């Protein structure tokens, strides 16, 4: 077990090294740290002087080592469009994205569980047929189109929900870092449409997954035994069958929230949501390389960290993984 953990952590470090190397190569190839620091109004002589002082003429490896050292201290360069440290820009915009994900997760949990269970218990009922055909359609629908349709319906035609922005927010810890929309009525209204469109990608998948897992469990011997024993249907479905449906569903849930993160970029663009995806697109549009690379390093870091932790937890639960070493 110890060897497995070490191996897994080593792999995570190697991946982060490769990603930071890629990021740094891009940055040193097309980035312009002098402009990031002092803007564009300096003479070429001054630029050369500053570049020399910043060590931009040093060999690649020395510069890379410096980049990694600074990154470990939390310095990922300066964003020139915000004129702030890039990491700070990302951290300030992260809560908006995280709240989007939380809202989406809530919708997925509260909608897919009842619908999935219902269509597993009564696969021939009208509601389950409707759910299943709707979920086939949902898979084929791009998230930005769902978002646009929702805006057209609820914001332009019915005019009952706001179409863009976060609305009124409250400062959660009093230091300006985490502004939440969950605590005000206006903020919650603004959350509805973005979260609905984000959850539309994952809902079909979860309903199908819960349905097929539940149907499989209902066929097993111990459920038949529970029926023979004369337990009440509610107890068999909810306690015996549902509990064993949940484990694979939770596993997939983790992975899918990662994928949903990629889709937040699209949703944030449609709803002008000031989150991480929005500033990423802004960085691309105005070629803010430092911010772009900082985004790459932070997002990759979060993914690698989460995957490593999840793998190690699996190692504890399922010994075959850690013995084989490979999945």
């Amino acid at each position, binding site marked *: 077990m110890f060897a497995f953990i070490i191996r897994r952590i080593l792999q995570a470090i190697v991946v982060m090294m490769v990603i930071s190397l890629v990021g740094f190569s891009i940055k040193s190839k097309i980035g312009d740290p002098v402009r990031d620091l002092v803007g564009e109004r300096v003479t070429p002589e001054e630029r050369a002087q500053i570049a020399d002082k910043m060590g931009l003429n040093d060999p690649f490896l020395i510069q890379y080592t410096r980049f990694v050292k600074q990154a470990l201290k939390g310095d990922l360069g300066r964003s020139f469009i915000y004129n702030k440290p890039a990491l700070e820009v990302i951290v300030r915009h992260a809560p908006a994205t995280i709240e989007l994900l939380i809202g989406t997760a809530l919708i997925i949990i509260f909608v897919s569980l009842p619908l999935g269970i219902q269509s597993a218990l009564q696969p021939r009922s009208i509601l389950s047929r409707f759910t299943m055909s709707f979920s086939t359609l949902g898979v084929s629908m791009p998230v930005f189109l769902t978002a646009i349709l929702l805006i057209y319906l609820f914001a332009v035609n019915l005019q009952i929900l706001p179409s863009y922005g976060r609305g009124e927010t409250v400062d959660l810890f009093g230091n300006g870092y985490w502004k939440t929309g969950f605590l005000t009525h206006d903020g919650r209204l603004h959350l509805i449409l973005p979260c609905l469109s984000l959850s539309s990608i994952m809902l079909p998948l979860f309903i199908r997954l819960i349905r097929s897992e539940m149907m499989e469990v209902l066929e097993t011997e111990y459920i038949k035994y529970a029926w023979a024993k004369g337990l009440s249907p509610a107890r068999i479905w909810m306690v015996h069958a549902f509990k064993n449906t949940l484990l694979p569903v939770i596993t997939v849930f983790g992975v899918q929230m990662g994928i949903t993160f990629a889709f937040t970029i699209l949703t944030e663009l449609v709803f002008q949501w000031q989150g991480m995806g929005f500033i990423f697109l802004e960085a691309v549009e105005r070629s803010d390389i430092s911010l772009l690379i900082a985004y790459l390093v932070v997002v990759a870091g979060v993914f690698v960290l989460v*995957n490593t932790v999840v793998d190690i937890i699996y190692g504890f639960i399922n010994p075959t993984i850690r013995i084989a070493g490979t999945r």
Partner: protein
Amino acid sequence: MKTKLQKFKESYFLYAFRRDKVAMASFIALVIFVLLAITAPWISPMNPYDSHNIDLMNSEIPPMWMEGGSPEFILGTDNMGRDMLSTMFYGLRTSIIIGIGAVSLQAFIGIVLGLSAGYLGGKIDAILMRIADIQFSFPYLMVAIFIGAVFQLIFGVGSYERLAIPLLTLIIGLSNWPMFARTIRASVMGEKNKEYVEAARVIGLPRFTIMFRHVLPNSLTSVMVIFTIQVASAIQSEAALSFLGLGMPVTRPSLGSLIRAGQEFIFSGSWWITIFPGLWLVIFVLVINLLGDWLRDVLNPKLYKG
């Protein structure tokens, strides 16, 4: 000796196809879509790439059944005065070219790496599959968006837009190959211990020949199954990239960039600029997905769940 055609006529594949109405309907729809895309330059009412045909006076004309519509533009015009129907045909064409090109690239990378990993085994297998695992741990759309962003910065917006089709093919191809590598590796692992491979080895055929001439053809069924579904997801990725502004430019639109271009006009009530290309894309992807699901059930019911 039966000819191939006769064999096909008596196969279970055709039998299953004829019995499934959904599969038949989606196959017919797919054929129509592909025909429309191929013949787009001849059947479109106008050429949306040619700026001579475009008249700004014609912008934002509603579909012909609505008030203010004209029979010249059946589905109306967009904000630049282009006929919606024509841009949708041309957009479909671009989306299909990129979708098939990108998945072919994915399949090529995936087959070469997956076949080597599965047949050669040992260290090569461990290294290749570890790389695939690591790329798999990041969402492929995220990978595609990032490669796209970096390409756009390296090439500059102008040349990126000129090279958009090959670049998008490359981006989507690179972002989603591990799926193919894993699938082909799994079926190669099953094939390589069979007797015909043993026999080929005994008569002294070179390893390369055995891999590509004997093992590969027998492992291709699994590739066919995921190929269709991957095309659907590649077309969706292309639409997503174009929607973000990292794809086809508005002057040579794909379905994604049409939706992007029409997005802001939804507030002024010109819904058709966005909704028509959007529905067009949804129906097209839906048809491919339905066909892909059916193919999976028929060819390989136990391949994967969900």
